[in-house]
């Protein structure tokens, strides 16, 4: 027989689920939870400086490890602050569990101090959410939350727990079991055979891999299938790392900022094998003009994604790694000389251009240089904007979970706290966070957390004194009427970092920038590296929003951009 309060039950169950790091901020409504956490010998608490930072630290842990991660916030502003990180986790299918304090039940609905309807507000941005009404319920709700966050398509779960429930004493005989993850399967053998027949019959197939490949640990299965049948492979932003960027079959990222040859090759395909991807508009461009002649095999664990935006000819709902492995024996060994030669021609005629690739003070050069300094074990986080797209285009990703980036929600401010989380989960590894001067200001307070936790994090700020992608769209699509995108106040990030107690320097002031970069990245501990970038360094090619992927602007060989 066990007897303890609700808060103690929560902490004990989290321990039993193997949680060893929790990021959060205490406040009036979750103080019992923090009191219980203070007694834990296995959970390390990471005190964030803003609840959104705590949410993204949890995401960094979950994205880099593949395991669910937990964050805490208090009621009211604590809860509203963390919602952005939860919405971000929903769009990118990241398993995080957020436990919020709530005012005591007797005060719910009275506009009490720090009361908001956390449950109501979190419905559309979570996979599921709970408002716990008795301490006994905690014994089923927490295991349910872990099950829901990780089974099928992963996603965030929020548990709102009133303060009186945290304090309520509960007696029980047994701890809940930690269930094993069930295997979901709803396709039939004949569907597998039909898909294999289509692949074998296709002349110009393309394998299109999304973030689901990473979540399902299916990059090995995808690579085996691609190599056996000589399938050219493209990846979404979240799918990068599913296959090494230097693999001969890899075409790189598709969509809005893809290399020209990649989008052109996809246009010519007669079969799209879409695995763990959801036809996001940034990947497909105008969906009605996205390879309209191609047959589609769609593999996804979420039945709601099948036929949502593009009708599939073969629909395979289940674990993508299992399905790809089941397909393998039915797919013929092929060389596809004709199709691969055609793709090589497209690549030669419309290559990816990376101007300044040898200059460490230019975006592509900086990214290439850093990639040369670190090895594949390094974790690369980005914020959102031009720097994110340059990294996606040019960084040589070679393994799953190497890139942490906010894809679906595109949240500026994601990078720094996510990188901190990744570093906490992988203390032996170097973590590099590429950010911009716009993004970094959206969660810059987490520099304090990074220094306090002594994470081995290198924060590289590409500073173009503007909201670069906004400026680029105003340049191209709004008659160069630049508005609200050019910062007049030029922040001194090096001084700011030093104020947080963090090493920092300006790469452009170094006489030997390559050596300075190497020294900074190989040294232990957090460091900020500031790199000024011209405002008019643009991201090319670009597909105009809403246009077909054929209509790329810029990045043309033998043309001045």
């Amino acid at each position: 027989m066990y007897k303890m309060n609700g808060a103690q039950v929560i902490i004990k169950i989290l321990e039993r689920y193997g949680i060893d790091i929790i990021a959060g901020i205490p406040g009036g409504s979750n103080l019992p939870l923090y009191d219980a956490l203070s007694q834990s010998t296995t959970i390390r608490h990471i005190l964030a400086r803003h609840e959104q930072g705590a949410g993204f630290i949890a995401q960094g842990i979950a994205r880099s490890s593949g395991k669910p991660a937990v964050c805490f916030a208090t009621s009211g502003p604590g809860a509203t602050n963390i919602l952005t990180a939860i919405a971000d986790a929903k769009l990118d299918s990241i398993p995080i569990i957020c436990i919020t304090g709530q005012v005591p039940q007797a005060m719910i609905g009275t506009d009490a101090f720090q009361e908001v309807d956390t449950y109501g507000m979190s419905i559309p941005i979570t996979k599921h959410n709970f408002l716990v009404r008795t301490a006994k319920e905690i014994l089923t709700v927490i295991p349910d939350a872990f099950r829901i966050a990780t089974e099928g398509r992963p996603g965030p779960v929020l548990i709102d727990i009133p303060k009186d429930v945290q304090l309520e004493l509960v007696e029980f005989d047994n701890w809940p079991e930690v269930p094993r993850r069930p295997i979901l399967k709803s396709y039939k053998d004949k569907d597998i055979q039909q898909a294999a027949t289509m692949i074998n019959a296709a002349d110009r197939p393309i394998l299109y891999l999304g973030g689901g490949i990473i979540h399902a640990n299916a990059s090995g299965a995808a690579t085996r299938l691609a190599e056996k049948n000589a399938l050219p492979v493209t990846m979404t932003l979240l799918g990068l790392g599913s296959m090494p960027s230097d693999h001969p079959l890899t075409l790189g990222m598709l969509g809005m900022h893809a290399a020209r040859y990649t989008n052109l090759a996809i246009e010519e395909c007669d079969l799209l094998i879409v695995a763990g991807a959801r036809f996001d508009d940034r990947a497909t461009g105008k969906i009605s003009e996205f390879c309209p002649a191609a047959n589609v095999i769609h593999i996804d664990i979420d039945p709601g994604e099948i036929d949502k935006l593009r009708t599939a000819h073969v629909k395979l709902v289940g674990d993508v790694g299992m399905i790809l492995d089941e397909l393998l024996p039915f797919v013929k060994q092929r060389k596809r000389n004709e199709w691969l030669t055609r793709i090589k021609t497209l690549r030669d005629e419309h290559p990816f251009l990376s101007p300044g690739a040898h200059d460490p003070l230019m975006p592509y050069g900086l990214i290439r240089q850093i990639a040369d300094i670190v090895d594949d074990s390094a974790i690369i986080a980005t914020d959102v904007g031009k720097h994110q797209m340059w990294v996606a285009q040019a960084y040589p990703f070679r393994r799953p979970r190497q890139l942490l980036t906010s894809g679906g929600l595109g949240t500026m401010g994601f990078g720094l706290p996510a990188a901190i989380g990744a570093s906490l989960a992988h203390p032996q590894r170097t973590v590099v966070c590429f950010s911009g001067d716009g993004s970094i200001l959206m969660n810059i307070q987490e520099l304090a957390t990074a220094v306090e936790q002594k994470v081995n994090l290198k924060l590289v700020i590409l500073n173009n004194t503007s909201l670069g992608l906004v400026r680029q769209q105003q340049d191209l699509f709004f008659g160069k009427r630049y508005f609200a995108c050019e910062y007049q106040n030029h922040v001194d990030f090096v001084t700011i970092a030093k104020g947080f107690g963090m090493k920092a320097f300006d790469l452009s002031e170094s006489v030997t920038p390559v050596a300075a970069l190497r020294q900074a990245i190989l040294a232990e501990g957090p460091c900020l590296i500031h790199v000024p970038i011209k405002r008019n360094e643009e991201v090319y090619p670009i597909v105009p929003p809403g246009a077909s992927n054929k209509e790329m602007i810029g990045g043309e060989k033998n043309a001045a951009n």
Partner: protein
Amino acid sequence: MPPIEPVKLSPAPDKPNKAVLELTVNNHPGVMSHICSLFSHRVYNMDGILCMPVKDGQMSKIWIRINGNGQLEQIVKQLQKLEDVHAVRYHNAGHEIFIALEDSFKVI
């Protein structure tokens, strides 16, 4: 986990976008919010909804009349994904449950 078997839909030929759905759900104070939030967030069109507890209040039954605009199948799939939804049954638009209520909805 709700079933992930695809639902076979056979809308009435004269009303291809209209249907009545019968849901069996967990009964708790947030369940209606979950259903309505799904409809608003995905811009599905519901023009009638009824909800009553069943089985001693452990479960509820929800009847929804929808105008699907070609989205019927997606609506059903998304409903099935909700944790609190145990079953989704599909009926044609002329189902008696809403017809029987017509008198109660007369505007005087």
